[in-house]
C-alpha cells in the first residue's frame, strides 16, 4: 500500500467578524512586519476554535496542526460536529482555499465534490450541462464523451437530456448533477455531504455507486458526513475533528463509536433549578446493583437506572415513567414503562436485565407522561452507559456489528 495523501501539520486561520475599516491597517501592519523580517503579528494571537465560546481575538484557528495520511484505495471517513473544521479541511484538500501553515502531498488526480451541479447553467440543455459540469470538475471533453451514455443512464433523465435544465424538477437536476460527479475519473475523490439529495431510491443508488467506486475500482475516497450509517458502510478508517484539532483516528468502527460516545456521554443528569411542570425529573444517574454510581458495566452486571422525580404538591393524577434504551446509532431498542402516583419526591429505580445488551455504547431517554393525554417531560439522552463484553459467547466478534442483543435461542439439529 502506498500513501497517496500525506497531510503535514495543516493549520488554517480565519479572521472573524466584519472585514471593515480594520483590514487596511492590519494589512499595512502585516506588510511592515514582513519588511522587517518578523513573523506575522496576527498569526500569534489565534485561538483554538470553539464556536460556543466568545474568543478574545478576531482570529481563530479553524484547523490546528492536523496530520494524517491516506493509503491508496482507502476510504476515509471524516466526522465531527458542525464547525469542527471538516469543511475547511476539504476546502484545503480541494484547493479552494490554501492553508495558513503546513503542507499536503498528493499523488494522483483529486476530484472534489463539495456540491453537486457546480456551474450548471439554467439556459443550457442537460447534455450541454453534463459537458460543462464535467469540465469544471476536471474531466476532458473526450473523457466525458466516452462516459456520456453511462452518465445519462445513471441519472435516469434520458428523455429530457435535450431540454434546458431550467425546466427540470429539482430532483432531476440533482440526479443529473450527481451522475456527472459519480463518473469522475480521478484517483482520489473528496465527497462532502452531497448524498443527502434526491429521493430515497436515488440516495441508495448514490451510496451504492460510492461503495462500488471504492471497492471495485480501488479508488481513494475522503468522505465527510453526519450520517453515521453511511460513513460506517462506506469507510474503512476514520478521523474525528474536534474544535479544529484531530481528536481521534482509527478503524471506522472505533472512530464512530468514539464519536458517538463523546457525543452522548452524559454520566448523570440533574435539574436543580426546578420546573413549573407538575412533575419533572430532578436527577438521574446509573449505578450497579449495590448502588455504586458508574457508567461502564460488565456484560454480566445489572444496569440500574436511578430517577429522582419531583411532583408539585397539588398534583394528584397518576402518571407513567418511561425509559427508552437506544443503541449507539440512536436506534431505539426497547422501552419500559411503569405507573406511579405521588405528590412530592419520588425515587424510582429501573434495573435492566444482565446478559442482554452486548458490548457497546447505549443511551437512555426518560419520560414522564399521562397515558393518552399529556407528556409531562421528555429528556433525550438523559444518561448514557457502556457495556463491556468480558466473556460472553459473542465476545469473539469484537467490534463487528452483530446487533445489540444476546438472545438465548434454541438450536436444534438432526
Amino acid at each position, binding site marked *: 500500500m502506498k500513501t497517496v495523501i500525506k497531510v*503535514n501539520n495543516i493549520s488554517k486561520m*480565519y*479572521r472573524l467578524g466584519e*472585514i471593515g475599516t480594520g*483590514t*487596511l491597517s492590519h494589512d499595512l501592519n502585516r506588510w511592515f512586519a514582513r519588511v522587517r523580517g518578523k513573523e506575522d503579528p496576527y498569526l500569534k494571537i489565534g485561538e483554538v476554535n470553539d464556536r460556543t465560546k466568545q474568543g478574545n481575538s478576531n482570529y481563530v484557528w479553524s484547523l490546528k496542526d492536523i496530520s494524517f495520511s491516506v493509503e491508496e484505495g482507502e476510504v476515509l471517513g471524516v466526522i465531527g460536529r458542525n464547525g469542527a473544521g471538516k469543511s475547511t479541511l476539504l*476546502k*484545503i*484538500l*480541494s*484547493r*479552494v*482555499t*490554501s*492553508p*495558513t*501553515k*503546513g*503542507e*499536503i*502531498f*498528493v*499523488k*494522483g*488526480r*483529486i476530484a*472534489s465534490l*463539495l*456540491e453537486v451541479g*457546480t*456551474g450548471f*447553467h439554467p*439556459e*443550457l440543455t442537460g447534455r*450541454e450541462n453534463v*459537458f*460543462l459540469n464535467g*469540465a*469544471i*470538475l*476536471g*474531466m*476532458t*471533453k473526450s473523457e466525458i464523451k466516452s462516459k456520456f451514455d453511462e452518465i445519462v443512464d445513471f441519472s435516469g433523465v434520458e428523455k429530457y437530456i435535450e431540454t*434546458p435544465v431550467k425546466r427540470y424538477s429539482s430532483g432531476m437536476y440533482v440526479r443529473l448533477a450527481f451522475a456527472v460527479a459519480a463518473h469522475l475519473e480521478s484517483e482520489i475523490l473528496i465527497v462532502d455531504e452531497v448524498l443527502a439529495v434526491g429521493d430515497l431510491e436515488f440516495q441508495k443508488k448514490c451510496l451504492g455507486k460510492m461503495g462500488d467506486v471504492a471497492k471495485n475500482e480501488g479508488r481513494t475516497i475522503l468522505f465527510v458526513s453526519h450520517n453515521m450509517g453511511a460513513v460506517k458502510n462506506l469507510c474503512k478508517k476514520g478521523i474525528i475533528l474536534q474544535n479544529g484539532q484531530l481528536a481521534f483516528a482509527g478503524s471506522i468502527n472505533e472512530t464512530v463509536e468514539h464519536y458517538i460516545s463523546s457525543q452522548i456521554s452524559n454520566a448523570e443528569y440533574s435539574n436543580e433549578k426546578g420546573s413549573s411542570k407538575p412533575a419533572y425529573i430532578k436527577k438521574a444517574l446509573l449505578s450497579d446493583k449495590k448502588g455504586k454510581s458508574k457508567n461502564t458495566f460488565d456484560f454480566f452486571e445489572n444496569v440500574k437506572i436511578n430517577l429522582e422525580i419531583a411532583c408539585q404538591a397539588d398534583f394528584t393524577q397518576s402518571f407513567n415513567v418511561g425509559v427508552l434504551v437506544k443503541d449507539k446509532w440512536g436506534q431505539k431498542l426497547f422501552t419500559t414503562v411503569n405507573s406511579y402516583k405521588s405528590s412530592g419526591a419520588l425515587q424510582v429505580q429501573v434495573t435492566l436485565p444482565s446478559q442482554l445488551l452486548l458490548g457497546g455504547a447505549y443511551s437512555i431517554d426518560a419520560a414522564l407522561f399521562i397515558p393518552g393525554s399529556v407528556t409531562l417531560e421528555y429528556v433525550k439522552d438523559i444518561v448514557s452507559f457502556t457495556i463491556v463484553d468480558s466473556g460472553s459467547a459473542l465476545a469473539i466478534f469484537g467490534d463487528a456489528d452483530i446487533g445489540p442483543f444476546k438472545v438465548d435461542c434454541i438450536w436444534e439439529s438432526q
Partner: protein
Amino acid sequence: MGNIALEMASNKEKSENWDLVIRPAGSAVTLNFKDIWKYRDLLFMFVKRDYVSVYKQTILGPLWFFIQPVLTTLTFALVFGRIARLSTDGLPMLAFYLCGIVAWNYFADCLNTTSGTFINNANIFGKVYFPRIIIPVSVVISNLMKFALQFLLLIMLVCYYAFFTEQQVQPNWLIVFTPLLLLIMGVMGLGFGIIISSYTTKYRDLKFLVTFGVQLFMYATPVAYPLSALPEKYQNILKWNPVTPIVECFRYAFLGKGTFDIFMLLYAALFSTVLLMCGMVVFNKVEKNFMDTV
C-alpha cells in the same frame, strides 16, 4: 530553527515524487501554464456557454449589441460633431465615431467583465478547483462575439461610404492588423481586469471606481476626437495612453485617416504584456485565499 530548515529541505526532495503539493499561499508565485493547458477544454466550454446563453436569451438580447453603439454614435455625432464641432479628420461623422466606439467597446468590455471575476464567480470558486484564470480568459474570448456583431455594423457602414458616396473613406491593407489589435486590446483589458478583480475581493469600493474610471479613460483616448486635432503638447501626453495607438491604427486601417505609428503599437504591445504578467502574479496570489475574504 536548524531542524526546521532541514525538514524543509527533505520535504522539497520528497515533493518531487508527488503530483500535487498544497502549500500556504505566498510561499512562491507560480504561473502554472501546464495546469491551464490541462483545463483547455473547460476554457472552450465556458466560451461556448456564453455564446449559447446569449443566443438562447430573448430576441432582443443580441440586438442590444447593436443598439448601444448606434445610440452612442448618434449622441457623439450630435454633441461632439454638431454642437462642439470637434474635428473628425475630414471623415464622415458616423463612420468616425462608430469606428472609435467599436474598438473602444471591446477593450472596455474586456476590462469591465474581467474585473468582476472573483466576486461574480465566488459561488463556483468556493466549491471546486480549476485554474481561476480560465474564467477571465474565457470572458475575453466571449467578448469577441459582441465585437464581431458591432464590427459587422462598422463594415456595413464603411462599405456604404466607400461604394455609394463620394466621401473619403479608404480602407487599406492595414486591416490585416485587426486580429493583432484585438489581441493587444484583449490582453490589456484582461491585465487591468484581473488586477482590479484581485483587489476588489478585499476592497469593494474599487468596483465603483472601475465603472467611473473606464468612462473617464475613454475621454483620455482619441475615441470622440482624432489625435491629430490636439495641440502638440497634449498629443505627446496622450501617446503614453496605450489604447491610443490601437484606436488610431484601427481607424486608419478602416477609414484611411488617423495616426499609424509602429513604435507606438510596439509600446502598446509591450505595455499590455507586462501588465498581464503583473496581473497574473497578483491574481495568482489572491486566488489561493480569496475565499476567506470574499
